[in-house]
């Protein structure tokens, strides 16, 4: 790890001002991605600005019936919060199926959105990587790419977005609130993550010094009937091969409301809008689920070793929706 200087700040204004004024500085929150990447020279800020004392770790009710998750709220605290478990079970489940208890005690929900990809070529400073070193190429395209994305890829980058939480948030249309040198902003979660396209080094529409202060969950009754299904190589403490966040209500055998998003298969948390269109108003049957899954995965591109993810994603969609419908029928 290269030497780094350190400042601890106690208010949001100083945090933003300090990082904005120093181009070589970075915010330090839970540090679970950042310290790791500093140690292997993938990220090299000269100064860390510790924001853990900022008053941004609360979970509050919003006047319109939504819920505000403070940017510094820890994954473990959000997952265990009664309002999250009752009204947004997909959020709680996604959090608890990610990382380990120790990491969830450290990592913040804003940091979870800002975490970097786990692509081995991104993490290896000797390897070509357009995300880490723009213009050097992509080692994964013809390399070991079993874990890589099949949706939203470009010829510059096929790294999978690693977050589980973000997949649940994308399904629910959460809003990311920030404070920065140009004032406060509210960014719809789907716009918060950028496709790699020709600029994979750019992952978020944030400016240097802009800080995620909260994640707002909208008032959304169907979110109470939601779940997160995660398929992986080992049963715990592992990233997703495929994940599905789904919320669904069924009236008289037909799908009245549907929210669907995919993780583990795309370069950003993937809202499955094409599948939602097929499902909206359709009979709540395995045939509908399968048809929707096929439409959603139609544009999927395999890079060799990750071919299996395409069918695995279809089957996981069918399973998630089947289990949700069964649960509702039983209720």
């Amino acid at each position, binding site marked *: 790890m290269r*030497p*780094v*200087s*350190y400042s601890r700040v106690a208010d949001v204004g*100083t945090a933003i*001002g300090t990082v904005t004024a120093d181009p070589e500085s970075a915010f330090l929150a839970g540090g679970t991605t950042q310290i*790791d990447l500093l140690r292997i020279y993938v990220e090299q800020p000269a100064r860390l600005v*510790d924001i853990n004392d900022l008053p941004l770790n609360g979970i509050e009710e919003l006047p319109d019936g939504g819920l505000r998750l403070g940017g510094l709220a820890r994954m473990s605290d959000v997952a265990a919060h009664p309002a999250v478990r009752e009204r947004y079970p997909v959020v709680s489940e996604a959090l608890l199926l990610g990382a380990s208890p120790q990491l969830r*005690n450290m990592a913040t929900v804003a940091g979870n959105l800002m975490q970097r990809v786990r692509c081995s070529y991104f993490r290896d400073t000797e390897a070509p990587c357009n995300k880490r070193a723009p213009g050097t190429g992509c080692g994964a395209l013809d390399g070991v790419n079993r874990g890589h994305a099949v949706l939203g890829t470009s010829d510059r980058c096929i790294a999978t977005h690693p977050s589980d939480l973000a997949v649940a948030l994308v399904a629910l249309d959460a809003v990311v609130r920030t404070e920065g040198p140009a004032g406060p902003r509210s960014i719809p979660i789907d716009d918060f993550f950028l496709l790699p396209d020709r600029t994979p080094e750019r992952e978020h529409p944030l400016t240097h010094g802009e800080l995620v202060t909260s994640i707002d969950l909208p008032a959304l009754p169907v979110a109470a009937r939601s779940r997160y299904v995660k398929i992986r190589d080992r049963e*715990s403490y592992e990233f997703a091969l495929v994940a599905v966040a789904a919320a669904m209500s069924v009236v008289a055998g037909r799908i009245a409301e549907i929210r669907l998003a995919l993780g583990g298969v795309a370069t950003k948390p993937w809202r499955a809008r094409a599948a939602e269109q097929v499902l909206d108003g359709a009979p709540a049957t395995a045939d509908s689920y399968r048809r929707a899954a096929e439409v959603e995965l139609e544009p999927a591109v395999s890079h060799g070793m990750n071919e299996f993810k395409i069918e695995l994603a279809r089957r996981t969609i069918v399973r998630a929706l089947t289990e949700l419908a069964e649960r509702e029928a039983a209720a």
Partner: protein
Amino acid sequence: MKSYQATRTAPAPDSAVVRGPGEVEVRLRVNGEVRRMFVEPRVSLLDALRDRLDLHGTKKGCNQGACGACTVWVDRRRVLACLTLAISCENREVTTIEGLSEGDTLHPMQQAFLDADAFQCGYCTPGQIMSAVALLDEGHAGDDDEIREWMSGNLCRCAAYPHIRSAIRRVRDEQEAGRAAR
């Protein structure tokens, strides 16, 4: 055009105190005792504990947040010391495996690991025990499946997992019996 004055959280000038990148004085409260040391800000809590404070119980396994051998508590919550900067723990309470026993009397979880033969090489054991005690405090030791899931952040390459679960069950059952007797 929104002026900075209009927002409650206007960016303030860069007024934060800069420490480092060379060695700076850091005071940590470890196992109830204030310890003073000189470390660079980049030094992890794990390295500070082992190399500066001679607390070698906390182990360095992967040094990248994958194995759990370095599990300690900060403010009573289990965390990974390898991904924590020592300097960021000022004003927080750090507890290591050395802080569990009362003098020569082992913590019940330490004793249970001995009684249940819950280790072979022992390298992961301090992390396992720090996690196991926290697990009981968190209330995630209901059955074996729950213990397995909530201990998944601590790898044991000797695969002593069945005996580790057995040790945790013993302490859980003792605690429950103790509560019932009161």
